[in-house]
Each structure stands twice: as C-alpha cells, then as structure tokens.
C-alpha cells in the first residue's frame, strides 16, 4: 500500500482486483484463462474523477464491471466507504448499488428493448422505492431535459434513438438516483463535441453540487484530461501508470503512456504530429508475456524487462509507474 495516504479515506478503494475469464474448448472444457484484469489497485476520492485509459481490450470495462460485482471477481477486494463490496449480500448490497451506478459502454444493449425510455429512466427510482408516480415522472422528464431531450422522447423505445442519444439516456439513467459514484464506461464517445461539452459540464456541475465521484473510462484523452483529477493507464490487465492528471499529461513516464499521448489526433488539418509508433507483437491476455507485460512492444526494452515483473514505483506524490526504466 502506498505510504503517502494521509488524505481522507478514499470513497472507493480497489485492492488487487483480478478477473479471469475461462476459455472453453469446443467440448466445453476449460482450457485456459483470459487474464482480463490482473491485480489492479487504485483509489477514488469523494468528489473526484478517476480517469482510466488504455489500449482497447486491456480490461477497463472488465475492471468497471467487476468493481460493481456485475462479474464474479476472481480475486482482490473493493472497499466502498471502507466496506468490502464483494462480501456484501442482500439488502446491504442493494443499498450500495443505489450509490454506485454504471454507464455501460454499449448503451443500446443495456436498455430493455421492450420498455419505453420513460420507464427505463424511472426504473432506478422504482427499484429503490423513491417518490410517487408523479414525482418519478417528473424526475424522468427532468433527466431527459438535462441530457438534452424533450418530453417527446419519454414514450419512445430505445431502438428509435441514435447512438449518441442512447448514450445520453444511459447517463441519465445512472444519474436518476443521485448516486455517490458512477462508473462511466465511455459515456461520451458517441457524442458530438457540442453535446459532449454539455454532458461534461453537466457531470462536473453535479460533481460540484453533490460531491459525485466518477470512474471515467474513455479513449478521448482530451476529454479525460479535462474531467479527471487522477488518471490511470492500463495495459493488458495491469495498471501501468497512475498520476494526477496534470502530471500525467505533462510528464508521462511509462513508454506506453508516452506513445498513447503522442497518438492523439489534433483538430487542425494543417498540423501533423509526430507519433510514437509501437511495433512488435501485440500480446494476448490468454498468454500474457513474462516479465513486463509491455516488453514485446516497448521501444526502450531492457533485458530484465523480459523476465522480471516491474514493481510499482512511486515517483512523485500520487504518481506511480510500473517500469524498469525508473527502478
């Protein structure tokens, strides 16, 4: 455990989280495990946003889903306000569920296709027995309005919406209960920039007003940078670097973080940036490389990287990196 924690106890503490998916052969026997999440630890403070970025398929969604116990965890623990979520059951778990909400990466399939949007938005309130019928309706309309819809949309079905609209609906649903923490799995990826700014402003406003916390998974680094207080970078199921936002963006340490930042496209057709192109074999989570998971593609690879797993190194307050270069 990092020694520098003198800050107030985190709202959510993830400790050594692991999630392995069994891989089945044709006959249904398990022939191996995909190590989607491998020993990931981080903290989210109340009223703050933790941005999670990383290569596609590195386990960000799985992290989010496992934290909320939507997937059976393989190992580790998640402490919410000091209580281990994984050991909660029944009413206690439901209570926690009210405070932890999720925006799914795949908005369309996360909504019951047979239910009208109005109902879908009211459902969280129904589940937790909040408000009368009229108040719920009003709350739903208010939420619709917040994410840029009119009352007209209340009676529509999910398939009648566009991709970006569905994404906003997913967010509205997560907001319905005024939760304490929302796991946002790419909540704005399908939004055009103007709506995206509206949504981000909304998220920030809520954060300020209600001390909301977010686990914010996104690929758009400018968005992540804008909204996050802390950013973690994942690679192949491991959290390879985490730091306060400014620090990460101004002085990235891990070679993967560096290449990631260099690849951000610039909205100016005349500017062409120099990208760090990663070469080498893209490893599979089924057979993660020995040693440092990144060594197959690392431009600065050392010999020990191939055999030795780098330890977590704290280079500055809150800035941790897993890389032999800094050992």
């Amino acid at each position, binding site marked *: 455990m990092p020694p520098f924690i003198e800050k107030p106890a985190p709202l959510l503490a993830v400790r050594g989280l692991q999630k392995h998916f069994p891989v089945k052969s044709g006959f249904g026997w398990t022939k191996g495990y995909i190590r989607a999440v491998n020993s990931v630890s981080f903290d989210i403070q109340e009223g703050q946003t933790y941005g999670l970025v990383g290569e596609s398929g590195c386990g960000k969604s799985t992290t989010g*889903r496992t934290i*909320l116990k*939507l997937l059976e965890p393989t190992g580790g623990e998640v402490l919410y306000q000091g209580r281990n979520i994984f050991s909660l059951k029944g009413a206690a*778990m*439901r*209570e*926690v*569920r*009210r405070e*932890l*909400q*999720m925006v*799914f990466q*795949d908005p369309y*399939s*996360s*909504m*019951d*296709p*047979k*239910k*009208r949007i109005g109902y879908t938005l009211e*459902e*969280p309130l*129904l*589940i*937790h027995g909040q408000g009368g019928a009229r108040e719920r*309706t*009003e709350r739903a*309309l*208010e939420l619709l*309005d*917040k994410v*840029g819809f*009119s*009352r007209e949309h209340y*009676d529509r*079905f999910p*398939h*009648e919406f566009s991709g970006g609209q569905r994404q906003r609906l997913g967010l509205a*649903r997560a907001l319905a*209960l005024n939760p304490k923490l929302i796991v946002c799995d790419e909540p704005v990826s399908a939004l055009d920039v103007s709506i995206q700014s509206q949504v981000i402003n909304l998220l920030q406003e809520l954060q300020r007003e209600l001390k909301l916390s977010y686990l914010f998974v996104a690929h758009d680094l400018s968005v992540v940078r804008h909204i996050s207080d802390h950013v973690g970078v994942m690679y192949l199921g491991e959290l390879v670097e985490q730091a306060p936002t400014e620090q990460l963006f101004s002085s990235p340490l891990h070679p993967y973080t560096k290449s990631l930042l260099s690849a951000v496209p610039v909205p100016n057709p005349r500017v062409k940036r120099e990208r760090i192109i990663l070469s080498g074999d893209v490893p599979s989570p089924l057979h993660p490389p020995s040693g440092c998971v990144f060594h197959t593609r690392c431009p600065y690879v050392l010999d020990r990287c191939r055999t030795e797993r780098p330890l977590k190194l704290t280079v500055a307050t809150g800035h941790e990196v897993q890389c032999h270069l800094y050992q």
Partner: protein
Amino acid sequence: MNTVAESALPLRTYRQERRRVLLRKWLDNRLLTTGSGIIALVVAIAFLGPVLVPYTPLEMDAVNRLTGPSWTHLFGTDNFGRDVFSRVVYGTRSSIIISLSVTVIASLIGMLVGLLSAYYALLDHILMRICDGLFAFPSILLAIAIMSTLGPKTSNVVIALSIIFIPSIARIIRSAALVVREKTFIEALHAQGAGPWRIIWLHIAPNTLSPLIIQASFVFAVTILTEAALSFLGAGIPAPQPSLGNILYDGKIVIYSAWWMTVFPGILVILIVLGLNLFGDGLRDLLDPKLTSGRGK
C-alpha cells in the same frame, strides 16, 4: 435547456394525448380486433346460449337418434337423439371456462417455474427435474388419481389439466429466458440494484412473451380435447353435460356415419383457436416496439 417547472403544467394533457395514441394503436391492430371480434362472438354464443337454443342439451329423443342437420335440429342429433346445436352451444361455454382457466393457471405457474429455473441455477436443477418427472407421469393416471381422491368436480378437472400442461410451458419459458438472462440490459439492471423479482417479472418475462403466447394458445386448443379424453375416465366435465371435447369424442365412434357430430363442434374449436391466435398475434405485435417503426427488420 428547458426547466422542469415550465413543463409541469401540460403534463396532464400530454398524458391524455398519450392515452389516445395508445388506444389508436390498439384499435388499428387488425389482428387484435379481428381476434377479439371472433372471441366475443363465440363467448356471446356460449353465454347467451340458454336464450338461443330450442332444446336443452340433455333432452333425448329416442326416435330421432343420429339424424342429420335439418331445420328442427340445425346441427343434427346425437346418438341419444339430443340436439347437437344445443349441446355445442352449452359445450362451448364449459369448454371455454375450463380451457381458459387451465391456460391461465398453467401459464402463470409454468411461467413462474420457467423463469425461476432460468434465473437460479440451483432451482433449475430442482424444478426442471420435477418437470421431467411430472412430464413422464401419464396424464391419464394423474387424472384418475386426482379425480378419485379429490372427487369429480370441474375445479379438479382444471387442477389435473393444469398440472399436465405446466411442464411444457415452463420449459419453453425457461429456454427463452435463458437467452434473455445473458443480455446486457439485465446486467444493467443488476447494476441499478434491481432485485431478482423485478428482473424476472418485469424484464425477462416480457421478453419471453411471444413463445408464451403461442404455447398458451396451443394449450388452450389441446385442453379442449384432453378434457374430453379425461371425461371418459370421469375426470372431465361431469357427464352427460356437454363440452366441445366430449361431443367430439362421442362423435368419434360414429365418425364415418354421423359427420355432423364432429364437424360442428370441430368448427367451434377451430373458431375459438383462430380467434385466440389472432388475438395473441395481435398482442405480440403490440408488445413488439420494433414493429411500428422502421429500424425493425
């Protein structure tokens, strides 16, 4: 952005408007309206029967046994010289009552069993094995046993028949529910803290509705005939009260000579099943949001 206060006032008119839209949607559904029309007609025949028919269904006429349709006996007479028309009218009533109760009970319980076993792996093992066992029990034996322990009463007929049909409904619901269970929106519901009851009944169940509707209308049709088979063992509607099924079965022996004893009740069965199926299809269409709009298909 609009504020909520602004939009609160016309909420009621908006709701009215919405109700109108929904009503129109129901009325515009040709399947649904035709189906309910047919059902209404049959139900009317059945329940206004006593006013309609010229004879009682039990009145015998030794001289005019097994006569074909004529003006005095619209649907002919049966092997006791009873008026088939009157019997069919009365029989329709009892058949509808029994089949409907059985369908409703079996569907509800079957659905409960199917959904629970799709949702809880442990219950799955238990409930489905019970269903297997139940399914393997010969229905005749079950009926004889129930009838001889509980007594020959219509309500017991309903119980016996319901038990017979629960396993098949349960299995079909379970199979559909197994697919739905794995969808992301169920995970989303878990994330919101939805309890199993809500997930099962409000989300999985509606998504298994179309196989249920089909299975239920099938059960309805089959019940009519099974009831008749059971009435041979005294486990049906107490003889000599008519039901569509036992009129058909009475006609079975003389099927080659007295066609009217099978054809007329047969037509009624077909009519009821037709009405029910149209209604069911209409309902299914109504509940399928994708049918009204273009993203469907």
